[in-house]
């Protein structure tokens, strides 16, 4: 599982259909260059407690994950042309501090940008 979280390439992710994405064991959120959410897999939906229709079409950093709206995550998608990095983070789903690892993915030849979310420990 860790390996897939760390190893999967953005090109591969972009080609997976909805069912395959739902089967991925970590959270996958994909968004456009305007930060509009276009991909939200079942794993993340279950972990976050949010129904996909509450998330798809919304602005990721403004409405879905405001906790990531800083220079550690949002700014990096702005500033860097190519991104493939893993950062430790704390999410605030249901207002509980949730330690996670984020993998930030961005490529010049890919229209969709991805944030992968792996929960560190199960609560």
């Amino acid at each position, binding site marked *: 599982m860790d390996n897939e979280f760390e190893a999967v390439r953005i090109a591969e992710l972009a080609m997976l259909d909805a069912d395959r994405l739902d089967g991925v064991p970590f959270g996958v959120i994909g968004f456009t260059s305007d930060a509009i959410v276009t991909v939200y897999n079942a794993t993340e939906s279950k972990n976050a*407690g949010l129904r996909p229709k*509450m998330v798809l079409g919304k602005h990721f950093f403004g*409405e879905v*994950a*405001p*906790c*990531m*709206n*800083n*220079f*550690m995550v949002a700014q990096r998608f702005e500033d860097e042309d190519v991104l493939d990095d893993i*950062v*430790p*983070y*704390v*999410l*605030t789903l*249901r*207002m*509980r*501090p949730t*330690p996670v690892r984020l993998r930030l993915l961005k490529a010049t030849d890919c229209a969709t940008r991805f944030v992968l979310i792996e929960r560190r420990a199960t609560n």
Partner: protein
Amino acid sequence: MVNPDTNDLESEYEALLSFMYLSPVGIIRSDLAGFVDMLNPLAAQLLMPLVKDGDIENIFDSLASVAPELRNLVGSFEGERGAVCENHRVFVTPARDGAVVLACSIIKVGANLLMTVLTDISRQVAAERRARQTESWLAGIYTSVNDFAFFSLDAEGRIESWNPSVERLTGFGETDVVGHTLSRFYARDEIVMHRSPEHIALTRDEGWHVEEFWCDTKTGRRYWGQVLIAVLREEGDDISGYSVVLRDVTERKVSSDNLARLLTTDHLTGVSSRAHFFEIAETEVARAERHGRALSVVMLDADYFKRINDTAGHQAGDEVLKRIAGEAKGLLRTSDTVARLGGEEFILMLPSTTTSEAVAVAERLRVAVERARIDTAVGTLKATVSLGVATLSTANPTLQSLLAAADRALYDAKRAGRNCVRGEMLNSTDVSCSPCEEGSMGQN
């Protein structure tokens, strides 16, 4: 067992979540030791950049690098509940433009419960810094400026602020001026074109207004002041007041007075210039006609002046002219004018003076010049003048005819042997005449 309220609860729950998610302030719930059990996204957004290992388990640890004092503040708070700190400033990046600054408020809610609010006040702090910079820039100006004062008026035109520049220029302290209008600075006897509140009305119409007038300092020293008033607007175009710059421009006024004198006087002799004479002559003629008063002129001319120049030199000739002018000036009343018409020719303009009075003045002048001993580089000179008198009358109703008559009278005086007074309609026996002498270079 279907709970009909489940859907409502779920929607309520989702709405609450969303409410907390979108809160524009960071909120953190922790125990007294700082261990976090609830926090909203904005709190994470603000705290994450501060922690190295991506762990915000404990709020005091998270803020230790920038606000190590928070733990102590909570520790030393003795009450059961209450505000431990309010809007405590946390400088995330070093203080400079563009620095990130947070405001932190901690409230002890119960025996072991803290609520912390975090907000990003970077923009506000930057604005404060800019305001402080502007203030110190202004203070720099008004502590060093010497010859102007600046201050502000309220919307009604009353002075509402004071600073040392005002005292330095006008001598007035804060209590002397605040609440007064601009007239506080005027000279006591000054007729000012536009007094407050007219200043203000004019300023409102044009956006700004400049005016100059005599002013008095607190100790009564007079100066020529220039005032510039400009409108200060609130957002929304309401006038919130006026800014005023008051300058001491006495020097400029003095030189412009000097300039005026330069333009209207003859450089050599200091009497009026020909141009200036004609300017005022028309006015005098009109005034005499309007009031039915006499107006006389005496045209005079230095005798044998060319000979003086040729024998004694031009500088000596200049001295002679200066002396003649000086004697003429000495005889005049304030309403009279003496002007140099050109070369060695002068004219006296005597308002409210009849022919016989003018003749008497002309004769006094003739004698004064005759008796004068003029010191020059080439020795002491003597000189005489010939004088022609004319008076405004039906025969000479205009300035032109008056001057022509005086000219004819002067010509008569020359022909009669010089050093004498002639006037039309006068018999030569009415006027005393001294024996004429040629201009001589007698050594006395």
